[in-house]
């Protein structure tokens, strides 16, 4: 089971992801509300995996991803996006994201993506 950092400006989305992941036995070691906070928490908490929302105010998920990968090129980041954001997902994958998920969350897909990234 993995130690996971959940990054999303929406408390409702964080709660939903947290419930899915904790129910499967993962540990949520921290939560962050934007890309800047995510980097600080990544450095201090050293999680096994990060879920990162793309659309966030202030520092976006793409910037947050770039900062984390610059600090640790082995970082395992799964991007979260609304549907219809293909260009942003592609940009994230080109910048080191390992996988992506779309909202609204489906528990099976969340857990499959996390398992795949952890196994790689």
């Amino acid at each position, binding site marked *: 089971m993995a130690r996971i950092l959940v990054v999303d400006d*929406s408390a*409702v989305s964080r709660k939903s992801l947290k419930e899915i992941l904790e129910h499967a036995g993962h540990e949520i070691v921290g939560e962050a509300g934007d890309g800047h906070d995510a980097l600080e928490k990544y450095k201090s908490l050293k999680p096994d995996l990060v879920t990162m929302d793309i659309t966030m105010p202030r520092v976006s998920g793409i910037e947050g991803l770039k900062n984390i990968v610059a600090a640790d090129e082995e970082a395992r980041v799964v991007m979260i996006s609304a549907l219809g*954001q293909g260009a942003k997902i592609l940009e994230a994958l080109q910048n080191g994201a390992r996988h992506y998920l779309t909202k609204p969350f489906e528990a099976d897909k969340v857990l499959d993506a996390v398992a795949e990234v952890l196994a790689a």
Partner: protein
Amino acid sequence: MFSHFFGHYLLEKKHITADQLREVLALQDSVRVKIGILAIDAGYMTAEQVETAHRLQATFDMRFGEIAIGKGYLTEDQLTDLLSRQSKRHLLVSQALADKGIMSFEDIERVLAAYRRDSGFSDAEYQALKENDLDAVAASLARMPELGDPEVYAGYFALFTRNLVRFIDSGIAIRRAEKVAVTPFDHMVHQEMDGRFKIFTGFSGSGPAMAEFAARYARMPMDGFDDMARDALGEFMNVQNGLFLSKLSNDWVELELLPPECRSGGVIRAVGVAYAIPFHLPFGEFTFFIGLGSPIFN
């Protein structure tokens, strides 16, 4: 759907009280049967298949019947049979009004004729309403000629109403779209989409109504219109607009979703063309907005 449109009209014209409307809708809700239940009842689908189709509906913008056929749970003939069983649902509200002794059959006949006249529905629109064809009714009421391609914009509103039914409540009544320039609001959630062109969409309502909307979407209780409620409303917009952009991207139009925003106690001023569509849910009145460019808030 007809019962909520007609019931809302009866209330506005003071033919019945709010308590009587609630009573009538509760009675007709008790006999209203969704297509999944009808399918189980007819032995066409198992409960597990119905559950799977409902779950897929939350992810894909498709009707229950389309998903069920796509998954091989139903045949075309079986779906036609189920839809015909649903088609008389518009009569339930009249039956409930009579059963409760609120109106006589003569009164119902007279008020139905008045509703038909006052609503301004064409024959095709009225038929669509009676047949519970939400897509057709929404697209028809959402004629917004100055925005541009009706397939895109009326289609957006039809998707919005489908998401209301899917996530919030099926008891929806809608008015016609009106062009607006400056509109005050109590509380509003809105989101911009930017790229080859720029549009904004959102909706407003009272604090309690917006909080209830948020609670139903997030499936958790809300303590009024607080940060958690704003988050949930923003997530509803993300899902609505994500589905919309997903359809647009099939036509090679890529727009970027900007973060949704909530505002309280202000005035929305359209810079480009904008339309408002009032809609009613059992727990409150709302106004949907859609427009070109970025709005200005005062």
